[in-house]
């Protein structure tokens, strides 16, 4: 049971070096904050390592480190994001996620109330996804050596039989589908950055995609490629696919859905939405004959309502991504170099 003392400390206190020191303060933090919110039978075993039965079939494993500023943003926070990140990496292999681990690097002085808010958000997100956090770890670094909280999650999933999804599997003639609008997450984050704040109704699209993926695989088990276009945006995801498969990609700019707020913000800041991060979207490459059926399935799922066919895989020994512009010309959609920066002139 949580004592009144601990609850008061969580409301007003801050992380200090003793929370990582291995003593009573650390044990209390783990028990009263992490375990209390993330509670599940495997975590409750109290081992350093989670013990559970392995399901039949091939296993999928992934890990994802999360650093973000600000920690809380419209449509999410680092807690929910760290769950979505790993769930989506597992889902992009076509697998059903089973369990997660989480490790936290906390900066001395970080408010415990904010930490609790983050852990509660993680717990809620994991519960909604039906995937428990079964093991974890906490370290504390001195003030100035971190940025509040860094969270690394890892996860295990199981692959349905007959599914072989891989970025190398893209072949000329196949269709490129996208599950919805691009750039929402990146622009929502930018809108809250210090020195750059601007008014927008826009929210991050941060979401767990394994439900959508399960529906898609049930309809078309032979999907060739799935990818979530996170950091670096759609352009980066497609360049990675082109590079891995040795084919080219031909995009139709007009077909790519972009929310008006994202378009406006990108215009003002001199950014290209193709390179802005997403946290709840996927790119799917499939046989052209399956595209119609898959789009139907995607559009009937809440996370794929604006799904669209945005292009095709083509022969190209240089494996480039080319886009036919709405304006009537064509351009290369290249890898991003460095960061996108606003123009001066």
């Amino acid at each position, binding site marked *: 049971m949580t004592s009144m003392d601990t609850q008061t400390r969580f409301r007003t206190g801050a992380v200090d070096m003793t929370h990582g020191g291995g003593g009573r303060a650390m044990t209390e933090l783990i028990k009263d904050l992490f375990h209390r919110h993330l509670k599940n039978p495997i975590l409750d075993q109290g081992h350093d390592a989670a013990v559970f039965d392995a399901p039949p079939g091939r296993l999928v494993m992934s890990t994802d480190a999360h650093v973000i500023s600000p920690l809380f943003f419209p449509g999410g926070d680092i807690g929910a994001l760290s769950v979505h990140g790993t769930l989506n990496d597992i889902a992009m292999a076509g697998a059903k996620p089973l369990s997660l681990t989480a490790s936290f690097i906390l900066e001395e002085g970080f408010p415990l109330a904010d930490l609790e808010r983050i852990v509660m958000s993680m717990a809620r997100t994991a519960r909604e996804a039906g995937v428990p956090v079964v093991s974890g770890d906490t370290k504390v670094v001195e003030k100035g050596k971190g940025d509040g909280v860094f969270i690394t999650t890892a996860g295990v999933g199981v692959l349905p039989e007959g599914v072989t999804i891989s970025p190398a599997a893209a072949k000329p003639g196949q269709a490129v589908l996208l599950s919805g609008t691009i750039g929402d997450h990146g622009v929502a984050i930018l809108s809250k950055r210090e*020195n*750059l704040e601007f008014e927008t109704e826009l929210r991050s699209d941060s979401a767990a995609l394994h439900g959508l993926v399960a529906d898609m695989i049930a309809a078309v088990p032979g999907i060739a490629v799935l990818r979530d276009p996170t950091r670096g945006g759609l352009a980066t995801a497609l360049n990675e696919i082109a590079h891995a498969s040795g084919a*080219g990609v*031909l995009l139709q700019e*007009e077909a790519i859905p972009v929310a*008006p*707020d994202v*378009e*406006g*913000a990108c*215009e*003002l800041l*001199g950014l*290209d939405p193709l390179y802005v991060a997403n946290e709840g979207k996927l790119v799917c490459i499939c046989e052209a004959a399956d595209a119609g059926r898959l789009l139907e399935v995607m559009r009937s799922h809440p996370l794929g309502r604006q799904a669209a066919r945005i292009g095709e895989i*083509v*022969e*190209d020994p*240089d494996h*480039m991504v*080319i886009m*036919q*512009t*709405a*304006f*009537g*010309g*064509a*351009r*290369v959609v*290249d890898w991003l*170099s*460095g*960061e996108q*920066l*606003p*123009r*001066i*002139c």
Partner: protein
Amino acid sequence: MKYIREFRDGNLAQKLAKAIRQEADPDRRYHLMEFCGGHTHAIFRYGVQDLVPENVEYVHGPGCPVCVLPVRRLDDAVELALTQNVILTTYGDMMRVPGTKQKSLIRAKAEGADIRMVYSTQDALKIARENPDRQVVFFAIGFETTTPPTAVAILQARAEGLRNFSVFCNHVLTPPAIAHIVNAPSEPGEDPVRIDGFLGPSHVSSVIGWASYEPAARDFRKPVVIAGFEPLDVMQSTLMLIRQINEGRHVVENQYTRVVTKEGNRKAQALAAEVLELRKVFEWRGLGYVPDSALRIREAFAEFDAEKRFALSPKESREVKSCECPAILRGVKKPTECKLFGTVCTPDNPMGACMVSSEGACAAYWTYGRKREAVLAAKGAAA
């Protein structure tokens, strides 16, 4: 936000393309220099070149503020940041430009210099207010568009008594650059640059007014059309230029009427004039020493002049050998004619400024233009 797609409408583009085809004389070539990096960017990002006839050629101009800054001034900024314990604030585009021996601000930062990217002079002032015990220098670069904000920052700093704020002033002016390009003798072994007309500066003209280019148009008998940065602006301006060339006229015309007036922004001009004055001569990358082409801080504001506040050592600044940035900035060479382009020099490992800045011609060629034809040909989809 409204009025974005309206300026990128594919149907209107096709109509303009048809008008340009009808106007352009197939028996001659049109060499049109787009002055600004913003124009270069629009041409490549939207594929404007695909929509104009083959004999209409865009020659990329020097209007990329990062590109024209000479290495010596960048080396000075690196020295300020590394040895004077200042907080150097800079526009982000400047961070990756290589200085002498490839030393960029981003490398200096990795070595421990306190360099912070800002979006405006107001951010730099804020940093100065928040760090009263540190010297904060704003690395001011850019054409007449960015000049008024620099002047305002200095006036604000004086009004607030911000003694720890100063400006390393590198502002340059567009009309002398245009005159220099048309007038300059070609380098030994170089063909003289052939320009039939200019797509004139866009945002710059909103500050200084289109009349500023009348002497250049008159004296050098070259038409100038002030052109907006949207792809439809570029196409309409192209049509207007071709008409002037065909009719043998050479005046300044204003396509960008929704923003630019004849006189420009008088208030902004007055602010800049209050704080800044002409330099007798200033070095440009590519153009060399151009008289009356840059601004410095007036004596009355000397306390905010980083060049006076800090002792900068003389240096042997050097660009990367065989980098063709200078010739590219003059419009004499195309990026693809540089030996380093795409081999040694890419946006991930830039040898010259033109490959760094999003407004640089090499970056635009590399990012949007590379190997495009091959894929389109394979697809049979070329416009």
